[in-house]
Protein backbone atom coordinates (compact mmCIF):
# COMPACT_ATOMS: atom_id res chain seq x y z
CA UNK A 1 0.00 0.00 0.00
CA UNK A 2 1.37 3.43 -0.89
CA UNK A 3 1.98 5.78 2.02
CA UNK A 4 0.33 9.13 1.31
CA UNK A 5 0.71 10.76 4.73
CA UNK A 6 3.15 10.23 7.60
CA UNK A 7 4.84 12.06 10.39
CA UNK A 8 8.03 13.78 9.19
CA UNK A 9 11.18 12.15 10.57
CA UNK A 10 12.45 15.50 11.86
CA UNK A 11 9.35 15.80 14.08
CA UNK A 12 9.61 13.62 17.18
CA UNK A 13 6.72 11.31 17.96
CA UNK A 14 5.65 13.02 21.19
CA UNK A 15 2.50 14.92 22.18
CA UNK A 16 2.78 18.70 21.76
CA UNK A 17 1.78 20.88 24.72
CA UNK A 18 0.02 23.64 22.78
CA UNK A 19 -3.57 24.79 23.36
CA UNK A 20 -6.35 23.44 21.11
CA UNK A 21 -6.49 25.38 17.84
CA UNK A 22 -3.04 26.90 18.27
CA UNK A 23 -1.11 27.03 14.99
CA UNK A 24 2.35 26.31 16.44
CA UNK A 25 1.79 22.62 15.68
CA UNK A 26 1.31 23.39 11.98
CA UNK A 27 4.52 25.45 11.94
CA UNK A 28 6.44 22.62 13.61
CA UNK A 29 5.18 20.19 11.00
CA UNK A 30 6.08 22.48 8.09
CA UNK A 31 9.62 23.04 9.37
CA UNK A 32 10.04 19.29 9.88
CA UNK A 33 8.77 18.46 6.38
CA UNK A 34 11.24 20.96 4.93
CA UNK A 35 14.13 19.54 6.98
CA UNK A 36 13.20 16.05 5.71
CA UNK A 37 12.90 17.15 2.10
CA UNK A 38 16.26 18.93 2.18
CA UNK A 39 17.87 15.99 4.00
CA UNK A 40 19.45 18.27 6.62
CA UNK A 41 18.24 16.82 9.93
CA UNK A 42 21.71 15.57 10.87
CA UNK A 43 23.37 18.90 10.09
CA UNK A 44 20.78 21.28 11.54
CA UNK A 45 20.77 23.00 14.93
CA UNK A 46 17.58 24.74 16.05
CA UNK A 47 17.28 27.49 18.65
CA UNK A 48 14.19 27.65 20.87
CA UNK A 49 12.98 30.99 22.26
CA UNK A 50 11.26 32.11 25.43
CA UNK A 51 7.50 32.03 25.08
CA UNK A 52 4.96 29.28 24.38
CA UNK A 53 7.55 27.36 22.34
CA UNK A 54 10.31 27.61 24.98
CA UNK A 55 10.61 23.80 25.05
CA UNK A 56 10.02 22.99 21.41
CA UNK A 57 13.52 21.49 21.56
CA UNK A 58 11.60 18.39 22.65
CA UNK A 59 9.75 18.22 19.32
CA UNK A 60 12.52 18.36 16.72
CA UNK A 61 14.89 15.48 16.05
CA UNK A 62 17.82 17.72 15.19
CA UNK A 63 20.15 19.14 17.88
CA UNK A 64 18.44 21.95 19.81
CA UNK A 65 19.52 24.84 22.01
CA UNK A 66 17.31 26.89 24.31
CA UNK A 67 18.03 30.66 24.30
CA UNK A 68 17.19 33.44 26.73
CA UNK A 69 14.35 35.84 25.89
CA UNK A 70 14.94 37.54 22.54
CA UNK A 71 18.55 36.39 22.19
CA UNK A 72 17.99 33.48 19.78
CA UNK A 73 19.57 35.35 16.81
CA UNK A 74 22.73 36.04 18.88
CA UNK A 75 22.86 32.41 20.06
CA UNK A 76 22.31 31.24 16.47
CA UNK A 77 25.11 33.57 15.36
CA UNK A 78 27.49 31.93 17.83
CA UNK A 79 26.47 28.46 16.66
CA UNK A 80 26.66 29.25 12.94
CA UNK A 81 30.03 31.04 13.23
CA UNK A 82 31.42 28.03 15.09
CA UNK A 83 29.87 25.55 12.62
CA UNK A 84 30.02 27.25 9.20
CA UNK A 85 28.96 24.06 7.39
CA UNK A 86 25.79 23.45 9.38
CA UNK A 87 22.26 24.82 9.09
CA UNK A 88 20.90 26.93 11.96
CA UNK A 89 17.36 28.18 12.54
CA UNK A 90 15.65 30.18 15.26
CA UNK A 91 11.98 29.82 16.18
CA UNK A 92 10.65 33.03 17.73
CA UNK A 93 7.40 34.69 18.69
CA UNK A 94 6.44 38.34 18.39
CA UNK A 95 7.36 39.36 21.94
CA UNK A 96 10.65 37.49 21.77
CA UNK A 97 11.68 38.80 18.35
CA UNK A 98 10.04 42.21 18.02
CA UNK A 99 10.15 43.53 21.63
CA UNK A 100 12.88 42.26 23.93
CA UNK A 101 14.97 40.86 21.07
CA UNK A 102 14.72 43.70 18.56
CA UNK A 103 18.42 44.55 18.68
CA UNK A 104 19.48 40.94 18.18
CA UNK A 105 17.23 40.30 15.16
CA UNK A 106 18.11 43.61 13.47
CA UNK A 107 21.84 43.10 13.85
CA UNK A 108 21.82 39.42 12.90
CA UNK A 109 19.91 40.50 9.79
CA UNK A 110 22.16 43.41 8.93
CA UNK A 111 25.27 41.27 9.38
CA UNK A 112 23.72 38.88 6.89
CA UNK A 113 24.13 35.97 9.30
CA UNK A 114 23.52 32.75 7.42
CA UNK A 115 20.66 31.69 9.65
CA UNK A 116 16.93 31.21 9.11
CA UNK A 117 14.36 32.74 11.44
CA UNK A 118 10.84 31.38 11.72
CA UNK A 119 8.87 34.27 13.21
CA UNK A 120 5.41 33.43 14.55
CA UNK A 121 3.19 36.53 14.79
CA UNK A 122 -0.06 36.04 16.67
CA UNK A 123 -0.37 39.65 17.82
CA UNK A 124 -0.24 38.76 21.52
CA UNK A 125 1.92 37.33 24.34
CA UNK A 126 0.68 33.77 24.75
CA UNK A 127 2.85 32.25 27.47
CA UNK A 128 2.36 35.03 30.01
CA UNK A 129 -1.43 35.13 29.37
CA UNK A 130 -2.38 37.62 26.73
CA UNK A 131 -0.47 40.86 27.15
CA UNK A 132 0.06 43.43 24.39
CA UNK A 133 2.72 42.41 21.88
CA UNK A 134 4.58 44.83 19.61
CA UNK A 135 2.44 43.34 16.82
CA UNK A 136 -0.88 43.79 18.66
CA UNK A 137 -3.36 45.60 16.41
CA UNK A 138 -4.79 49.03 17.17
CA UNK A 139 -7.93 48.72 19.34
CA UNK A 140 -7.11 45.05 20.10
CA UNK A 141 -7.98 44.21 23.70
CA UNK A 142 -5.26 42.41 25.69
CA UNK A 143 -4.67 41.97 29.43
CA UNK A 144 -2.37 45.03 29.41
CA UNK A 145 -4.54 47.04 26.98
CA UNK A 146 -7.92 46.30 28.57
CA UNK A 147 -9.44 49.30 26.74
CA UNK A 148 -7.77 48.41 23.45
CA UNK A 149 -4.37 49.37 22.04
CA UNK A 150 -4.35 53.11 21.45
CA UNK A 151 -1.79 54.68 19.15
CA UNK A 152 -1.24 57.71 21.38
CA UNK A 153 -0.62 55.56 24.46
CA UNK A 154 0.90 52.35 23.12
CA UNK A 155 2.23 53.18 19.68
CA UNK A 156 1.62 51.25 16.50
CA UNK A 157 1.98 47.60 15.47
CA UNK A 158 5.49 46.87 14.24
CA UNK A 159 5.97 45.54 10.69
CA UNK A 160 9.01 43.31 11.00
CA UNK A 161 9.31 42.17 7.37
CA UNK A 162 9.06 45.69 6.00
CA UNK A 163 11.63 46.95 8.54
CA UNK A 164 14.15 44.17 7.90
CA UNK A 165 13.73 44.53 4.13
CA UNK A 166 15.54 47.88 4.39
CA UNK A 167 18.71 46.09 5.52
CA UNK A 168 21.27 45.05 2.91
CA UNK A 169 22.27 41.89 4.81
CA UNK A 170 18.85 40.26 4.40
CA UNK A 171 18.52 37.82 1.52
CA UNK A 172 15.01 36.41 1.83
CA UNK A 173 11.96 37.86 3.59
CA UNK A 174 8.38 36.64 3.25
CA UNK A 175 5.17 36.96 5.25
CA UNK A 176 2.71 34.08 5.09
CA UNK A 177 -0.42 33.02 6.94
CA UNK A 178 -1.93 29.75 8.16
CA UNK A 179 -5.65 30.54 7.81
CA UNK A 180 -6.40 28.00 5.05
CA UNK A 181 -4.84 25.11 3.12
CA UNK A 182 -3.66 27.25 0.23
CA UNK A 183 -1.87 29.61 2.60
CA UNK A 184 -0.41 26.74 4.63
CA UNK A 185 1.06 25.39 1.38
CA UNK A 186 2.48 28.83 0.60
CA UNK A 187 3.95 28.98 4.09
CA UNK A 188 5.76 25.70 3.50
CA UNK A 189 7.16 26.94 0.19
CA UNK A 190 8.47 30.08 1.90
CA UNK A 191 10.04 28.08 4.76
CA UNK A 192 11.71 25.79 2.26
CA UNK A 193 13.07 28.69 0.24
CA UNK A 194 14.35 30.35 3.42
CA UNK A 195 16.35 27.23 4.32
CA UNK A 196 17.58 26.90 0.73
CA UNK A 197 18.80 30.50 0.82
CA UNK A 198 20.84 29.64 3.91
CA UNK A 199 22.18 26.44 2.33
CA UNK A 200 23.26 28.49 -0.69
CA UNK A 201 25.12 30.87 1.65
CA UNK A 202 23.15 33.90 0.43
CA UNK A 203 22.56 35.56 3.80
CA UNK A 204 19.86 36.05 6.41
CA UNK A 205 16.39 34.62 5.74
CA UNK A 206 13.15 35.08 7.68
CA UNK A 207 9.57 33.91 7.29
CA UNK A 208 6.91 35.72 9.30
CA UNK A 209 3.92 33.47 9.90
CA UNK A 210 0.57 35.01 10.86
CA UNK A 211 -0.90 32.68 13.47
CA UNK A 212 -3.77 32.34 15.87
CA UNK A 213 -3.93 32.30 19.66
CA UNK A 214 -7.49 31.18 20.44
CA UNK A 215 -6.87 30.92 24.20
CA UNK A 216 -5.69 34.48 24.64
CA UNK A 217 -7.87 35.99 21.94
CA UNK A 218 -10.88 34.49 23.77
CA UNK A 219 -12.17 32.79 20.62
CA UNK A 220 -12.72 29.22 19.53
CA UNK A 221 -10.30 27.89 16.87
CA UNK A 222 -12.68 28.56 13.97
CA UNK A 223 -13.49 32.08 15.15
CA UNK A 224 -9.77 32.68 15.61
CA UNK A 225 -9.02 31.76 11.98
CA UNK A 226 -11.77 34.16 10.90
CA UNK A 227 -10.41 36.90 13.21
CA UNK A 228 -6.95 36.49 11.68
CA UNK A 229 -8.36 36.91 8.17
CA UNK A 230 -10.56 39.87 9.00
CA UNK A 231 -8.19 41.77 11.29
CA UNK A 232 -4.56 40.75 10.72
CA UNK A 233 -4.50 40.38 6.92
CA UNK A 234 -5.44 44.04 6.28
CA UNK A 235 -2.60 45.20 8.57
CA UNK A 236 0.07 42.62 7.74
CA UNK A 237 0.33 42.35 3.98
CA UNK A 238 1.18 38.83 2.82
CA UNK A 239 3.86 38.23 0.22
CA UNK A 240 7.53 38.32 -0.51
CA UNK A 241 9.57 41.35 0.49
CA UNK A 242 12.96 40.17 -0.65
CA UNK A 243 14.69 37.32 -2.46
CA UNK A 244 11.70 35.96 -4.42
CA UNK A 245 13.80 35.32 -7.52
CA UNK A 246 17.03 34.46 -5.72
CA UNK A 247 18.75 31.50 -7.38
CA UNK A 248 19.33 28.79 -4.76
Amino acid at each position, binding site marked *: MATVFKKPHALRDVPLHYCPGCTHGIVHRLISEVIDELGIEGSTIGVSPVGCTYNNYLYFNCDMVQASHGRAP*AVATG*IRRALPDKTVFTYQGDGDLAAIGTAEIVHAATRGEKITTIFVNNAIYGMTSGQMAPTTLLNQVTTTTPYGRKADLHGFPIHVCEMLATLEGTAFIERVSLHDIKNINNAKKAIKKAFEVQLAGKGFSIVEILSTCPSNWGLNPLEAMKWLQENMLPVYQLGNFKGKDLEV
Partner: protein
Amino acid sequence: MGEKLLMKGNEVIAEAAIRAGCRHYFGYPITPQTEVAHYMAKRMPKIGGVFLQAESEVAAINMVYGAACTGVRVMTSSSSPGISLKQEGISYIAGAELPAVIVNIMRAGPGLGGILPAQGDYFQAVKGGGHGDFKMLVLAPCSVQELYELTVEAFNLADKYRIGTMILGDGTLGQMMEAVEFKDEENIVHYEKNWATNGTNMERDHNIITSIDTNPEILESWNLRLQDKYKQITENEVRVEEYNCDGADLIVAAYGSVARIVKNVIKMAQKEGIKVGLIRPITLWPFPVNSFEKYAEVTKAFLTVEMSAGQMVEDVRLAVNGKAPVSFYGRTGGIIPTQQEILDKIKSILNR
Protein backbone atom coordinates in the same frame (compact mmCIF):
# COMPACT_ATOMS: atom_id res chain seq x y z
CA MET B 1 60.49 28.30 28.61
CA GLY B 2 60.21 29.99 25.24
CA GLU B 3 59.92 33.49 23.91
CA LYS B 4 60.19 36.45 26.30
CA LEU B 5 58.34 39.60 25.19
CA LEU B 6 57.35 42.99 26.55
CA MET B 7 53.58 43.13 26.22
CA LYS B 8 50.47 44.89 27.49
CA GLY B 9 48.27 42.90 29.87
CA ASN B 10 45.17 43.04 27.69
CA GLU B 11 47.09 41.81 24.65
CA VAL B 12 48.55 38.97 26.66
CA ILE B 13 45.03 37.82 27.60
CA ALA B 14 44.16 37.61 23.91
CA GLU B 15 47.41 35.87 22.96
CA ALA B 16 47.02 33.41 25.83
CA ALA B 17 43.48 32.56 24.72
CA ILE B 18 44.67 31.86 21.19
CA ARG B 19 47.49 29.70 22.55
CA ALA B 20 44.90 27.82 24.62
CA GLY B 21 43.03 26.92 21.44
CA CYS B 22 40.34 29.62 21.54
CA ARG B 23 39.27 30.48 17.98
CA HIS B 24 36.02 32.27 18.79
CA TYR B 25 35.81 35.69 20.40
CA PHE B 26 32.71 37.85 20.72
CA GLY B 27 32.87 41.26 22.38
CA TYR B 28 31.80 44.87 22.59
CA PRO B 29 34.16 47.83 23.03
CA ILE B 30 34.64 49.24 26.54
CA THR B 31 37.61 50.81 28.33
CA PRO B 32 39.94 49.65 29.87
CA GLN B 33 39.88 46.20 28.18
CA THR B 34 39.41 47.09 24.52
CA GLU B 35 42.92 46.00 23.48
CA VAL B 36 41.76 42.40 23.93
CA ALA B 37 39.33 42.97 21.06
CA HIS B 38 41.90 44.86 18.96
CA TYR B 39 44.33 41.96 19.26
CA MET B 40 41.65 39.37 18.46
CA ALA B 41 40.43 41.39 15.45
CA LYS B 42 43.94 41.38 14.03
CA ARG B 43 44.89 37.79 14.78
CA MET B 44 41.72 35.70 14.40
CA PRO B 45 41.28 36.12 10.62
CA LYS B 46 44.90 35.02 10.11
CA ILE B 47 44.49 31.76 12.01
CA GLY B 48 41.07 30.75 10.76
CA GLY B 49 39.34 32.03 13.87
CA VAL B 50 36.27 34.18 14.44
CA PHE B 51 36.32 37.71 15.81
CA LEU B 52 32.90 39.33 15.94
CA GLN B 53 32.10 42.79 17.30
CA ALA B 54 28.60 42.33 18.68
CA GLU B 55 25.85 44.96 18.79
CA SER B 56 25.81 44.84 22.58
CA GLU B 57 27.30 43.10 25.60
CA VAL B 58 24.04 41.15 25.85
CA ALA B 59 24.41 39.87 22.30
CA ALA B 60 28.13 39.12 22.81
CA ILE B 61 27.55 36.85 25.81
CA ASN B 62 24.72 35.08 23.97
CA MET B 63 27.01 34.50 20.98
CA VAL B 64 29.45 33.00 23.49
CA TYR B 65 26.58 30.81 24.75
CA GLY B 66 25.81 29.67 21.20
CA ALA B 67 29.42 28.93 20.28
CA ALA B 68 29.99 27.12 23.59
CA CYS B 69 27.00 24.86 22.76
CA THR B 70 28.96 23.53 19.76
CA GLY B 71 31.92 22.54 21.94
CA VAL B 72 34.50 25.09 20.74
CA ARG B 73 36.66 27.13 23.12
CA VAL B 74 35.15 30.61 23.28
CA MET B 75 35.82 33.85 25.13
CA THR B 76 34.44 37.32 25.70
CA SER B 77 35.96 40.23 27.57
CA SER B 78 34.61 43.44 29.01
CA SER B 79 34.87 45.92 31.88
CA SER B 80 32.55 46.43 34.82
CA PRO B 81 29.41 48.06 33.30
CA GLY B 82 29.65 45.63 30.37
CA ILE B 83 29.88 42.66 32.73
CA SER B 84 26.69 43.84 34.44
CA LEU B 85 24.95 43.62 31.06
CA LYS B 86 26.31 40.11 30.52
CA GLN B 87 24.88 38.75 33.77
CA GLU B 88 21.76 37.29 32.15
CA GLY B 89 23.90 35.25 29.78
CA ILE B 90 26.31 34.26 32.53
CA SER B 91 23.41 32.82 34.54
CA TYR B 92 22.21 30.87 31.47
CA ILE B 93 25.76 29.58 30.88
CA ALA B 94 25.74 28.32 34.48
CA GLY B 95 22.27 26.80 34.12
CA ALA B 96 23.08 25.07 30.84
CA GLU B 97 26.52 24.01 32.18
CA LEU B 98 28.54 25.46 29.32
CA PRO B 99 32.30 26.05 29.33
CA ALA B 100 33.18 29.66 28.55
CA VAL B 101 35.84 32.17 29.56
CA ILE B 102 34.74 35.65 30.57
CA VAL B 103 37.28 38.39 31.26
CA ASN B 104 36.46 41.37 33.49
CA ILE B 105 39.09 44.12 33.56
CA MET B 106 37.49 46.09 36.36
CA ARG B 107 37.04 49.85 36.42
CA ALA B 108 35.59 52.15 39.04
CA GLY B 109 31.84 52.19 39.70
CA PRO B 110 29.01 52.18 40.45
CA GLY B 111 27.06 53.26 37.37
CA LEU B 112 29.23 54.54 34.58
CA GLY B 113 31.83 55.28 37.27
CA GLY B 114 35.22 55.89 35.71
CA ILE B 115 37.78 54.13 33.58
CA LEU B 116 40.49 53.91 36.25
CA PRO B 117 41.25 50.64 38.05
CA ALA B 118 39.05 49.25 40.81
CA GLN B 119 38.03 45.99 42.45
CA GLY B 120 34.40 46.79 43.09
CA ASP B 121 33.04 43.81 41.16
CA TYR B 122 34.25 41.19 43.65
CA PHE B 123 30.76 40.47 44.98
CA GLN B 124 29.36 40.31 41.46
CA ALA B 125 32.04 37.83 40.40
CA VAL B 126 32.19 35.47 43.36
CA LYS B 127 28.66 35.63 44.74
CA GLY B 128 26.93 35.21 41.38
CA GLY B 129 25.97 38.53 39.76
CA GLY B 130 23.09 36.98 37.86
CA HIS B 131 19.91 35.26 39.05
CA GLY B 132 19.79 31.83 40.64
CA ASP B 133 22.10 29.63 42.71
CA PHE B 134 25.28 29.50 40.69
CA LYS B 135 29.01 30.05 40.85
CA MET B 136 31.70 30.98 38.42
CA LEU B 137 35.28 29.88 38.85
CA VAL B 138 37.07 33.20 39.40
CA LEU B 139 40.80 33.62 38.79
CA ALA B 140 42.65 36.75 39.95
CA PRO B 141 46.06 37.25 38.30
CA CYS B 142 48.52 39.79 39.74
CA SER B 143 51.01 40.17 36.88
CA VAL B 144 51.13 40.06 33.11
CA GLN B 145 52.92 36.70 33.34
CA GLU B 146 50.09 35.37 35.50
CA LEU B 147 47.46 36.82 33.14
CA TYR B 148 48.98 34.57 30.50
CA GLU B 149 49.22 31.44 32.63
CA LEU B 150 45.80 31.78 34.25
CA THR B 151 44.04 32.57 30.96
CA VAL B 152 45.35 29.31 29.48
CA GLU B 153 44.32 27.49 32.66
CA ALA B 154 40.87 29.14 32.59
CA PHE B 155 40.06 27.30 29.36
CA ASN B 156 41.12 23.95 30.84
CA LEU B 157 39.08 24.51 33.99
CA ALA B 158 36.03 25.70 32.02
CA ASP B 159 36.10 22.52 29.91
CA LYS B 160 36.86 20.23 32.84
CA TYR B 161 33.88 21.38 34.91
CA ARG B 162 31.59 22.78 32.16
CA ILE B 163 31.54 26.08 34.00
CA GLY B 164 31.79 29.80 33.23
CA THR B 165 35.29 30.82 34.28
CA MET B 166 36.15 34.45 34.93
CA ILE B 167 39.48 36.20 34.76
CA LEU B 168 39.04 39.06 37.23
CA GLY B 169 41.67 41.70 36.67
CA ASP B 170 41.69 45.46 36.98
CA GLY B 171 42.60 48.38 34.75
CA THR B 172 46.16 48.43 36.11
CA LEU B 173 46.83 44.86 34.98
CA GLY B 174 45.10 45.28 31.64
CA GLN B 175 46.96 48.45 30.76
CA MET B 176 50.45 47.75 32.17
CA MET B 177 53.32 46.49 30.03
CA GLU B 178 55.54 43.82 31.51
CA ALA B 179 57.81 41.03 30.42
CA VAL B 180 55.99 37.81 29.70
CA GLU B 181 57.62 34.50 28.91
CA PHE B 182 55.55 32.22 26.72
CA LYS B 183 55.95 28.46 26.84
CA ASP B 184 56.94 26.61 23.69
CA GLU B 185 53.90 24.41 24.12
CA GLU B 186 50.74 25.00 26.14
CA ASN B 187 49.17 22.52 28.49
CA ILE B 188 45.90 22.12 26.62
CA VAL B 189 43.73 19.43 28.17
CA HIS B 190 41.16 17.95 25.78
CA TYR B 191 37.83 16.89 27.19
CA GLU B 192 35.23 14.78 25.43
CA LYS B 193 32.20 16.96 24.58
CA ASN B 194 29.57 14.42 23.62
CA TRP B 195 26.94 16.82 24.97
CA ALA B 196 27.62 19.44 22.27
CA THR B 197 24.94 20.47 19.76
CA ASN B 198 27.00 20.18 16.59
CA GLY B 199 24.61 18.14 14.45
CA THR B 200 23.46 14.55 15.02
CA ASN B 201 24.81 13.43 11.63
CA MET B 202 21.90 10.95 11.95
CA GLU B 203 24.17 8.83 14.12
CA ARG B 204 22.87 9.63 17.60
CA ASP B 205 19.77 10.98 19.36
CA HIS B 206 19.49 14.75 19.43
CA ASN B 207 21.38 16.74 22.04
CA ILE B 208 19.52 19.46 23.90
CA ILE B 209 21.12 22.37 25.73
CA THR B 210 18.72 24.14 28.05
CA SER B 211 18.46 25.62 31.52
CA ILE B 212 14.72 25.27 32.06
CA ASP B 213 12.55 22.58 33.53
CA THR B 214 9.08 23.32 34.88
CA ASN B 215 9.08 20.17 37.01
CA PRO B 216 10.40 21.32 40.42
CA GLU B 217 11.81 17.88 41.31
CA ILE B 218 13.84 17.77 38.11
CA LEU B 219 14.96 21.38 38.46
CA GLU B 220 16.04 20.72 42.03
CA SER B 221 18.02 17.68 40.90
CA TRP B 222 19.83 19.93 38.39
CA ASN B 223 20.56 22.39 41.17
CA LEU B 224 21.91 19.62 43.39
CA ARG B 225 24.15 18.47 40.53
CA LEU B 226 25.50 22.03 40.22
CA GLN B 227 26.10 22.22 43.96
CA ASP B 228 27.91 18.88 43.87
CA LYS B 229 30.14 20.21 41.08
CA TYR B 230 30.84 23.37 43.08
CA LYS B 231 31.81 21.20 46.04
CA GLN B 232 34.28 19.28 43.89
CA ILE B 233 35.77 22.54 42.64
CA THR B 234 36.03 23.85 46.19
CA GLU B 235 37.89 20.69 47.20
CA ASN B 236 40.23 20.54 44.20
CA GLU B 237 40.85 23.91 42.61
CA VAL B 238 41.77 26.39 45.35
CA ARG B 239 44.85 28.40 44.44
CA VAL B 240 46.57 30.77 46.83
CA GLU B 241 49.94 32.39 47.46
CA GLU B 242 51.06 32.56 51.10
CA TYR B 243 53.96 34.98 51.37
CA ASN B 244 56.02 35.67 54.49
CA CYS B 245 53.16 34.43 56.70
CA ASP B 246 55.06 32.24 59.17
CA GLY B 247 55.64 34.20 62.35
CA ALA B 248 53.95 37.33 60.95
CA ASP B 249 52.54 39.86 63.42
CA LEU B 250 49.90 40.79 60.91
CA ILE B 251 48.73 39.17 57.67
CA VAL B 252 47.39 41.23 54.81
CA ALA B 253 44.79 39.75 52.47
CA ALA B 254 44.89 41.23 48.98
CA TYR B 255 44.42 40.03 45.39
CA GLY B 256 45.42 41.17 41.93
CA SER B 257 47.49 44.32 41.51
CA VAL B 258 46.90 45.37 45.13
CA ALA B 259 48.79 42.27 46.31
CA ARG B 260 51.88 43.54 44.51
CA ILE B 261 51.73 46.83 46.35
CA VAL B 262 51.44 44.88 49.58
CA LYS B 263 54.63 42.94 48.79
CA ASN B 264 56.50 46.25 48.72
CA VAL B 265 54.82 47.27 51.98
CA ILE B 266 56.11 44.04 53.53
CA LYS B 267 59.69 45.11 52.70
CA MET B 268 59.11 48.61 54.12
CA ALA B 269 57.67 47.11 57.31
CA GLN B 270 60.59 44.73 57.66
CA LYS B 271 62.95 47.73 57.81
CA GLU B 272 60.94 49.02 60.76
CA GLY B 273 61.09 45.63 62.46
CA ILE B 274 57.47 44.67 61.75
CA LYS B 275 56.84 41.25 60.32
CA VAL B 276 53.96 41.33 57.83
CA GLY B 277 52.66 38.43 55.74
CA LEU B 278 50.40 38.22 52.70
CA ILE B 279 47.68 35.78 51.75
CA ARG B 280 46.91 36.33 48.08
CA PRO B 281 43.88 34.40 46.85
CA ILE B 282 44.49 33.39 43.23
CA THR B 283 41.09 31.73 43.02
CA LEU B 284 38.57 34.18 44.49
CA TRP B 285 35.97 31.44 44.11
CA PRO B 286 36.72 28.91 45.43
CA PHE B 287 38.10 31.07 48.25
CA PRO B 288 41.23 29.82 50.07
CA VAL B 289 39.48 29.39 53.40
CA ASN B 290 42.07 26.94 54.74
CA SER B 291 44.92 29.45 54.52
CA PHE B 292 43.03 31.90 56.68
CA GLU B 293 41.92 29.21 59.15
CA LYS B 294 45.52 28.07 59.52
CA TYR B 295 46.99 31.50 60.27
CA ALA B 296 44.02 32.75 62.30
CA GLU B 297 45.36 30.63 65.17
CA VAL B 298 48.79 32.24 65.22
CA THR B 299 48.78 35.78 63.86
CA LYS B 300 47.72 38.85 65.86
CA ALA B 301 45.56 40.46 63.20
CA PHE B 302 44.44 40.49 59.59
CA LEU B 303 44.11 43.48 57.28
CA THR B 304 42.27 43.26 53.99
CA VAL B 305 43.30 45.82 51.38
CA GLU B 306 41.17 46.32 48.29
CA MET B 307 40.37 48.89 45.65
CA SER B 308 36.78 48.79 46.88
CA ALA B 309 34.71 49.88 49.85
CA GLY B 310 35.21 46.40 51.39
CA GLN B 311 34.05 43.28 49.61
CA MET B 312 36.58 40.44 49.88
CA VAL B 313 36.94 41.41 53.55
CA GLU B 314 33.58 39.69 54.15
CA ASP B 315 35.00 36.36 52.93
CA VAL B 316 38.15 36.92 55.01
CA ARG B 317 35.97 37.49 58.10
CA LEU B 318 33.97 34.33 57.35
CA ALA B 319 37.18 32.32 57.01
CA VAL B 320 38.85 33.81 60.10
CA ASN B 321 35.58 33.19 61.95
CA GLY B 322 36.25 35.53 64.87
CA LYS B 323 39.59 33.97 65.83
CA ALA B 324 41.50 37.18 65.11
CA PRO B 325 40.55 40.80 64.40
CA VAL B 326 40.08 41.63 60.70
CA SER B 327 40.54 45.25 59.61
CA PHE B 328 39.98 46.82 56.25
CA TYR B 329 41.64 49.49 54.17
CA GLY B 330 40.34 50.45 50.74
CA ARG B 331 40.29 53.19 48.15
CA THR B 332 37.55 53.69 45.58
CA GLY B 333 36.84 55.87 42.56
CA GLY B 334 39.88 54.60 40.63
CA ILE B 335 42.45 55.50 43.28
CA ILE B 336 45.21 52.98 43.92
CA PRO B 337 46.22 52.73 47.60
CA THR B 338 49.82 53.80 48.24
CA GLN B 339 52.42 51.75 50.07
CA GLN B 340 52.66 54.40 52.78
CA GLU B 341 48.90 54.44 53.38
CA ILE B 342 48.90 50.68 53.82
CA LEU B 343 51.97 50.74 56.10
CA ASP B 344 50.37 53.47 58.26
CA LYS B 345 47.24 51.36 58.58
CA ILE B 346 49.30 48.31 59.62
CA LYS B 347 51.14 50.36 62.23
CA SER B 348 47.95 51.80 63.65
CA ILE B 349 46.47 48.29 64.00
CA LEU B 350 49.61 47.06 65.81
CA ASN B 351 49.95 50.28 67.85
CA ARG B 352 53.44 50.87 66.43
